[in-house]
C-alpha cells in the first residue's frame, strides 16, 4: 500500500496561523497550510483552496463555512475547514 492516508503539512512553520473555523466573517485571510489526508488535500487543491491563495470568509456558521476564492463561492463543512490553516 502506498502512504496515501498520511497527514500532509505543506509548511513547517505556521505559527502565526489558525484554523479557518476560527476565522471571523468578512475577513480576508491567506491559506498557509492544509492539514488533512491526501484525498481531502487533493479535493481542496482542485477546487482552488491551496497554500498562498487569499480567501475571504463570507459565513462561518455552525457546520458550514462559505468562502470566496477567485471570485467563486465555496462551501466547506467544518471538519474540512478545520484543516485549512490561515493567517491574516
Amino acid at each position: 500500500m502506498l502512504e496515501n492516508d498520511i497527514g500532509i503539512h505543506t509548511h513547517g512553520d505556521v505559527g502565526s496561523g489558525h484554523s479557518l473555523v476560527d476565522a471571523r466573517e468578512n475577513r480576508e485571510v491567506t491559506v498557509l497550510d492544509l492539514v488533512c489526508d491526501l484525498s481531502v488535500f487533493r479535493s481542496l487543491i482542485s477546487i482552488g483552496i491551496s497554500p498562498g491563495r487569499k480567501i475571504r470568509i463570507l459565513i462561518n456558521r455552525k457546520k458550514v463555512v462559505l468562502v470566496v476564492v477567485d471570485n467563486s463561492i465555496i462551501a466547506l463543512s467544518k471538519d474540512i475547514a478545520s484543516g485549512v490553516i490561515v493567517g491574516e
Partner: protein
Amino acid sequence: MREIKVVLFGHPNVGKSSIFTSMTGLFVEVSNYPGTTVEIYRGYIKRGDTRFIVIDVPGAFSIVPSTTAEDIARRVILEEQPDIIIHIADATSIRRHLYLTVELLDFGIPLILVLNQIDRARELGIEIDREKLERELNIPVILASAITGEGIEDLMEKISEIIKTEKTATYVRLSGSVESTIRDVQHSIEGHLNNYRRFSRAIASWIILGDEKYQHLSRYIPEKIKNKLGETAKTIMLERIKYVDRIYKKCIKSQQMEVKLRRMEYVMMKPLYGTFFAVGITFLIIWGVLAIIHEIGHRIPSIFYYNYYDPYVRALINSIIKNEFIRNILIGEKPGIYSSLGILTTGVFFVFFMILPTMFVIYIIMGILEDLGFIPRVVASCHNCMRHLGMSGDAIIPIITGTGCSIVGILSSRTLRSEKSRVLSSFIQVFGVPCIAQQIMIWALLGKYGAFYVFMLYLILVISISFAGLLASHLIPGDTAFLLIELPAWRKPKMNNVLKKAIARMKSFLINGVPLVFLGILVLNIMYYTGTALIIAKFFEPIISGLFGLPSETALALIISILRKDVAVGILGGYRLTASQALIAVTLITLYFPCIGSLLIFLSEFRPKRTALIILLMLGFSTIIGLLLRVILIH
C-alpha cells in the same frame, strides 16, 4: 467519411452543457456509460467530409476522481481515446480552473482551453491576454460565451485546424526529482497497462497522487520508490499550483471583486430554519407550479381523453375483438378510469394524461433551479440537518431528484463522495419519498377527501424518514462525507439547455418506467379475471383488515405497488375507502416495500446484504406506522 471524437471536460456548473448545446443543437443522444448508469450525452456535427462526435461527460473538479461521476468522466477519455479534449473553464475564475488544465495535459491528447462566460468576465473587468496564455500553456485558447454564442465558431474552426496539424499536447514539466519519480513509476507500470499504455505518464501521476482506482498497480513499483511517493504527491500538487499561479499572474489582470451574498442566501445558511426555508422554497415552487398545471394543463388532456380518445378506443376494440377476456384486459369491462382497468384506457390515461405532462413540468422546474444555481445553495443549507441523518449536505440532491423518480435519484447518488451517504440517501428515497408519478396519484386520491389528508401524509412521511434515517445511520457503517462544493453565480437559465435535459429524462421514463406501468395493469387485470386476486386478498385479510383496518381488497393494491406504486394508488380510487383508510393505505403503499425498478437498481448499486437490511427496515417501520395510524384514526 472521417470521424473525429471530441470530449468536453470541466468543473460542474461551468456552462459545459450550454457549450455542448451551442455546438450540437437540441436533439442529442443520451446513454448510460457501459456497465454504469451515469448519463453521457453525445451530439453529432457534420462539417465537410468530417463527422464530429461530441461527448459531454459529468462535471469533474479533478482528473483524479473523488466521486463515481468524476471517475466515469475520466473513463470516457481513457476508453473512448478521443482525438481532442476541450476543457471548458470559467473565465471569471480562471485560476481555479487552470489546475485541471494542467492535469488534462498529462493525457498527451490535443487539448483546447475554452474560457466560457467571457462576456461576464469583461463586465467584471477581468482582462485575459489570450495569446500569451496560449504561448504559456502551449495549447489553443478560445474566449467564448454560450449565452451570446461568441467563440463557438472559432472553436469549431480550431478543432478542424488541430485535426489537420495533428499537434498533440505536452505535459507540464515539474522539478527534477519529481519528474524522476514519475518516470520511475511510469517505467514500473508501463508493461501492465494494455490499451492504456499511451497514458502511462498520467496513470503514474495518479498512482502517486493516491488514486484508489490504480493502487493495484503499485505492486509493480519497487519498494524504494514506493517509500517516497507520499512526499512526491504533495510536491506534484504544490508545483502545479505554483505553475498555475505564475501563468495567471502573467496572462490575467483581474480587479479585486466584491462577491456578496444575497439576503436570501444568509437566511438559507441559518442552522435550523435556513434548511426549512431552502427545502420549503424548492417544494413550494414545484408544488405551486403543479397546482397551476393541474388546474389548467391537466384539464385540457383530460377533456381530450374523455371526449375523444376513450369513446374512440372503446368503439374500436369492441368492434374488432370478440373475445371478452382479451377485450377486458385491453379496455376494462366498465367505462371509467378506476371502475375497471384496461391497458389502452386506464394505462394510457395514467401515462400520457396524468404522469407525463406533470413529469415534464417538474423536470423543467428542476432544470431551471439547477441552471439558476439554486440547488447547490440548498445543499449547503441542508448540510447541518443532513449530518444528523449521517449524510453530507449534497445528499439532498439525489433525494430531491428522487421526487421525480427514485430510480433516477438512486443513480444520481453516484455524485456523492461517501458510500454511507449514498446508501442512506437511496434508502430515504425508496422508503419515504414518493416518486412524482405516485404523488400525482396521491393528490388525486387524497385530494378528494380534502387538502388536510394530503398534508397529513407528507407530515407522516417526514416523521418516518427522520426516525428511519436516524436508525439507518447507526446501522450502516462508514464515515459521513465532508461537504466541499462550489456555489455557482446566480445566472439566467438557458431554456434550450433545460429543455434538452427534460427531454432526455422523459425519454428515460418512457423507456424504463412506462413498460412497467402497462405490465402492472396487465398483471392486475389477469389476477382479477382469473380469480387470483380474490385468493390473495383472502390470504392477506388478517393482516390488512385485522392489523390496519383496511378492506381486504387493499392487499391487491399493496402487491401491485411492488410493480408500480402510482398504479397501486390509482387502484385505491376504485375502492370504497374512508378518508382515514385511504390515508393508511397510501402510507403503507409508500413505505412498506420499494417498487421493483428501485429494488433492482438498489441491488445493482449496493450489496444484497444492504438491500436486505433496507427491506427489513421498510417492513418494520411501515408496520409500526400503519398500526399507530390505525389506533389513532380508526380506533
